[in-house]
């Protein structure tokens, strides 16, 4: 009894730690990784390429770290936040003014959300340009797309919660974008039978206006439904990264004949993980132990994310405008910045900009790995020098065409300014949004004809869309003022 009590600390520790915390040999290091719930998501050895900053820029990890930060700060904010139209604004003001560390934590939540959106976009671009969506990683690309949509959804639902003017009018616009299929059904005179827009809007708001019903729906989506879905999909995403062979790398390079990866020898049991299995007793060339090298990388990226978020949060407060007032619209009423590209398109046609083009873009992105089956070029940025050239050309083309189109509309208007009686369906079909999509598609087809390479034409299309997204987003964020007029800078906005 006494002896057992004496041994209690040691036994307690042993019962918690399944293996050692101080591995000294490679075997022990492998075991330490394998015997830990969190670490066993990783393989025990990783390729050196995985650790190369310039290959992945740690973007997936930054996204994950932001999500962790968001979850933690989000739970803390829930302690004080009251999801009611009468109390929400006051409770956020209280968090801002008197809750200990409240202002800082709310700032972190805000900035981590921005960071996560940026990182998830860049992560997708990285995966695309290194060809990492190719077999066997097609499905994980789809999971990634779903995670992108969820990230935007989480950001969007969080936007309403402070119940200030910014929130109220951004969500009013968002909800009316959901309503915009009416533009088409009205034109076809079938709204009475098939009211997709009205259905979507009511599903989102629970009413015809943004009110208490909408607030509680957005709250439930923001703090429960979407985060749970997100966490589950993230689990799938990580698991597939691991099972699909880790981070992609160039596997076409000539191999050392003495490599421990023998092409003939496989162990059935270990074949559950894709990739060739190593010969017994030798460390494979080009790989290092996950413990500690991958751990260092992960900790560094995590802490880097935290440091950046905290620095931003220290200097820039999250915005909180006047309390929501349905009688006074914000002018300009702007959605969150990552939707401002869409809002720019929405200013031409609500349906095309808000529903049509995003759907086309998502379907296009989802199809990429199933259309481009060429296994070459995986693990190399742009798949090689030819891809890089196409990337730059497409960047220039994408930028010039969208800027020119916007300059045209800003200076000369669009169809309705020229032919005032033009019917709405024509504008829905022919507007700067669809024109730019067609221009990009044409460019990409031209590249396909010139190079006969689906991969290169995909690079062209993706790059064009990225350029268009950047330009349209800056247009909506910076260059649009009251009444959605063009201004060179917000300081030129008239007081209204």
């Amino acid at each position, binding site marked *: 009894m006494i002896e057992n009590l004496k041994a209690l600390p040691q036994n307690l520790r042993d019962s918690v730690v399944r293996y050692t915390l101080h591995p000294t040999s490679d075997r022990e290091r492998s075991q330490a990784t394998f015997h830990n719930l969190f670490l066993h998501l990783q393989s025990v050895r990783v390729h050196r390429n995985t650790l190369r900053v310039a290959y992945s820029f740690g973007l997936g990890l930054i996204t994950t770290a932001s999500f962790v930060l968001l979850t933690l700060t989000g739970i*803390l904010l829930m302690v004080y936040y009251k999801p009611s139209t009468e109390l929400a604004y006051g409770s956020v003001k209280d968090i801002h003014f*008197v*809750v200990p*560390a*409240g202002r800082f*934590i709310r700032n972190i939540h805000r900035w981590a959300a921005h960071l996560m959106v940026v990182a998830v976009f860049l992560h997708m671009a990285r995966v695309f340009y290194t060809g990492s969506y190719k077999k066997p990683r097609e499905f994980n690309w789809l999971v990634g797309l779903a995670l992108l949509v969820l990230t935007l959804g989480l950001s969007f639902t969080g936007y309403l919660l402070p119940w200030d003017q910014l929130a109220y009018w951004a969500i009013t616009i968002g909800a009316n974008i959901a309503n915009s299929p009416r533009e088409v059904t009205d034109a076809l005179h079938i709204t009475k039978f098939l009211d997709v827009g009205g259905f979507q809007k009511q599903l989102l708001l629970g009413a015809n206006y943004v009110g208490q019903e909408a607030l509680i729906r957005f709250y439930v989506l923001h703090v429960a439904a979407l985060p749970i879905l997100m966490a589950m999909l993230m689990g799938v995403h990580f698991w597939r990264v691991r099972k699909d062979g880790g981070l992609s790398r160039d596997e076409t390079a000539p191999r050392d004949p003495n490599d421990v990866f023998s092409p003939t020898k496989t162990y059935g049991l270990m074949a559950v993980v894709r990739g060739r299995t190593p010969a017994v007793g030798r460390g494979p060339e080009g790989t290092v132990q996950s413990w*500690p090298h991958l751990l260092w990388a992960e900790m*560094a990226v995590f802490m880097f994310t935290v440091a950046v978020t905290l620095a931003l949060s220290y200097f820039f407060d999250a915005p909180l405008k006047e309390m929501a007032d349905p009688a006074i619209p914000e002018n300009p009423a702007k959605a969150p910045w990552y939707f401002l590209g869409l809002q720019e398109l929405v200013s031409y046609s609500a349906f095309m900009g808000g529903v049509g083009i995003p759907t086309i873009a998502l379907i296009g992105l989802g199809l990429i790995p199933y259309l481009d089956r060429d296994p070459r070029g995986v693990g190399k940025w742009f798949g090689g020098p030819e891809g890089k050239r196409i990337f730059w050309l497409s960047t220039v083309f994408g930028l010039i065409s969208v800027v020119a189109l916007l300059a045209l509309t800003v200076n000369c208007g669009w169809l309705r300014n020229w032919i005032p009686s033009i019917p709405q369906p024509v504008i829905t079909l022919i507007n700067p949004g669809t024109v730019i999509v067609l221009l990009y598609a044409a460019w990409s087809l031209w590249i396909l004809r010139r190079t006969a390479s689906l991969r290169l034409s995909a690079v062209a299309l993706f790059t064009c869309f990225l350029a268009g997204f950047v330009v349209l987003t800056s247009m909506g964020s910076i260059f649009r003022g009251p009444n959605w007029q063009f201004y060179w800078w917000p300081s030129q906005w008239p007081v209204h």
Partner: protein
Amino acid sequence: MFDAGRRDFLGLAAIGSALAALGTALAGVLRLPKPAVLPGPMRVYKLGDPAQFAVGSVVKMDAEQLYLFRDERGFHAISSVCTHLGCIVAHSEREGFACPCHGSKFDTQGKVTGGPAPTGLAWLEVSLSPDGQLQVNGETEVSRGTRFQVG
């Protein structure tokens, strides 16, 4: 940890500073749930002109959760919150205070005479506010028998 060999000062410093940062963050996070200022009205109650309370009167103040007494020797206030588990005690001139929840009994001075209450009812500090109103501080206890004389 993590192969921190004898000469890996860099690794040790990195891990150490990371732990320090996370520890500080944790401290900040733990501060958040404890409110810096409690919601609800102030616990210092201004009860108005002392002259409005007649000598010999007992007033039950519901919102303030106290009984205010005025006798020849001055004012005193006794909390109406039972020291057992926080129910509101009833008062009768002769028998003192009785708690309806678990049967605690207190005499007219608030001393325990029966039931599970661990201590007597609190006597609260009575004073005159700078602007001349009678003021009871719900946060400050005084010793039993303390009276406050106006003037």
